[in-house]
């Protein structure tokens, strides 16, 4: 548990959002995703307070923090899944390539095609074959060309390092393979719609160490072509896969920097206490 009673007080420029300045960002292209004063609520519960940050294109950014700190909600705001929860609310802006995804003209379907997501528990569609799972986003979006779908399925499965394991049983149910394979299937499914950003919400928490290692290897590889934002409660995982790491606590962004700096030389005391395992 962590509370003020245990001597941990949150002192992070209380009223101003800790906008993390990283010089590397400014000299390159526009960051692909930028949050501006993001606030989110479930009913009256304020779960994200005034978070502003930028995610760098074709890099892996990890969001760490103790349970309930709002890290999952944060990524769910990025593809507008947050709004599916009854009584959920949000203020602020989420910019994708400079355009607010919450803008009035924006079709939520387009947003979700550009920003894909992989969930905590593998969730393949149980009534579809492995092949159909991969191309589900396209098929359900109206693509009918069988040849093209086959090709996309193969491509996505190869990108997800799953092709060799399932190429002989593409017509088996998506639920028939192991948990780790199912998660890679879900990654392939997200890749098949050709997003620019891939959100991952604790993608390895339901997997064993071997399956986890495979997914981590895959995440690093994916950042060649995609912007990956991964939520994890596993700090070792963050240090292994992420170029940048953000630490959240009680809905606030406490610190955000290049991963080695975060873990070796954190600026905030709270971050240090968290990554050294003193709380969380």
């Amino acid at each position: 548990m962590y509370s003020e009673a245990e001597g941990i007080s949150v002192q992070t420029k209380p009223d101003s959002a800790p906008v993390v300045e990283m010089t590397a960002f400014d000299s390159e292209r526009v960051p692909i995703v930028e949050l501006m004063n993001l606030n989110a609520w479930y009913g009256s519960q304020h779960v994200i307070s005034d978070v502003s940050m930028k995610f760098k294109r074709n890099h892996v950014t990890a969001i760490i923090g103790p349970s309930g700190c709002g890290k999952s909600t944060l990524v769910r705001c990025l593809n507008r899944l947050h709004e599916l929860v009854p009584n959920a609310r949000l203020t602020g802006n989420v910019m994708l390539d400079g355009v607010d995804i919450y803008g009035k003209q924006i079709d939520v379907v387009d947003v979700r095609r550009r920003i894909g997501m992989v969930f905590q528990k593998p969730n393949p569609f149980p009534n579809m074959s492995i092949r159909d799972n991969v191309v589900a986003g396209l098929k359900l979006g109206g693509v009918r060309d069988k040849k093209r779908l086959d090709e996309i399925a193969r491509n996505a499965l190869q990108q997800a390092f799953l092709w060799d394991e399932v190429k002989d049983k593409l017509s088996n149910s998506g639920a028939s393979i192991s948990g780790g394979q199912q998660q890679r299937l879900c990654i392939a499914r997200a890749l098949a719609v050709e997003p620019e950003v891939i959100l991952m919400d604790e993608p390895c928490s339901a997997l064993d160490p071997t399956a986890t290692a495979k997914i981590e290897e895959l995440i690093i590889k994916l950042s060649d072509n995609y912007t990956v934002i991964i939520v994890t409660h596993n700090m070792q995982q963050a240090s292994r896969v992420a170029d940048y790491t953000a630490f959240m606590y009680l809905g606030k962004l406490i610190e955000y920097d290049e991963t080695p700096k975060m873990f070796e030389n954190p600026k905030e005391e709270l971050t240090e206490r968290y990554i050294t395992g003193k709380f969380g």
Partner: protein
Amino acid sequence: MITRRGILDKVWLGLAVAAVVAALAPLASIIYYVTVRGISAISWNFLTHNFNQVGNNGGIGNALEGTFLVVALASAIGIPIGLLVGVYVSEYGTGRSADVVRFLSDVLVGIPSIVTGILVYSAVVISFPTPYNGYTAFAAGLALGLMEIPIIANTTSESLKLVPNSLREASAALGVRKWRTILLMMANSLGGIMTGILLATSRVAGETAPLLLTALGSTQSFQGWFNSVETMTLFIFQNGTSGTPNLVEQAWGASFVLLITVLGINIAIKMVTRRRIVFV
């Protein structure tokens, strides 16, 4: 060793077994009696020939045809509306509105069928006179259709609620439109939805009360939707109470056929719920 607890156990077991016997005995005797009395009336002639007043050579041809057509119309009304109401309650209704619709639907399931009958009688039969004083196959189908709606709506919404939310989110996160996501969720709960449809069909196929106020009965084959029509239950009602021995025997024969039909639908329900249906 005889202990107090041991005796209590035996008493409870005895009571439970006695209750099971008490519950099953009438059911078994119904099946036995209907079979014994009905089976002798069954012949190809009986199944295919229309009602004959004298009883000789008469049959249930027109009653079977009428029941089939009236139930078909009922399903044509009840299935689409019932499915849509169920989808609304489970997928669109937020908070109060869904609760209200769900509550009304529960109440409607419990409304005695004669009440639905009198409603259709006053709204349709009296209001639109035809050669048979407004009694029509259409009114009969409408009355039974109204009865099907809440049954199908409730089973549909319950089945959809059983689909894990993670699949809804998986579909939404792929950028699949909401209506398409809902169809996918329906495919995932097809067994439950089919069960509801068959349950509703089997329930209305055995209805008599609303048909007395709408279909009236007929000695002829189907004469179009705006004429009175014979059904199995009306045939049983009219001939079973006629006092003419061979007509009473025919009523038993019709009862047997109806029993087999309803039994058949229930076996179909069992098969549907057991088999995994692959779709999409």
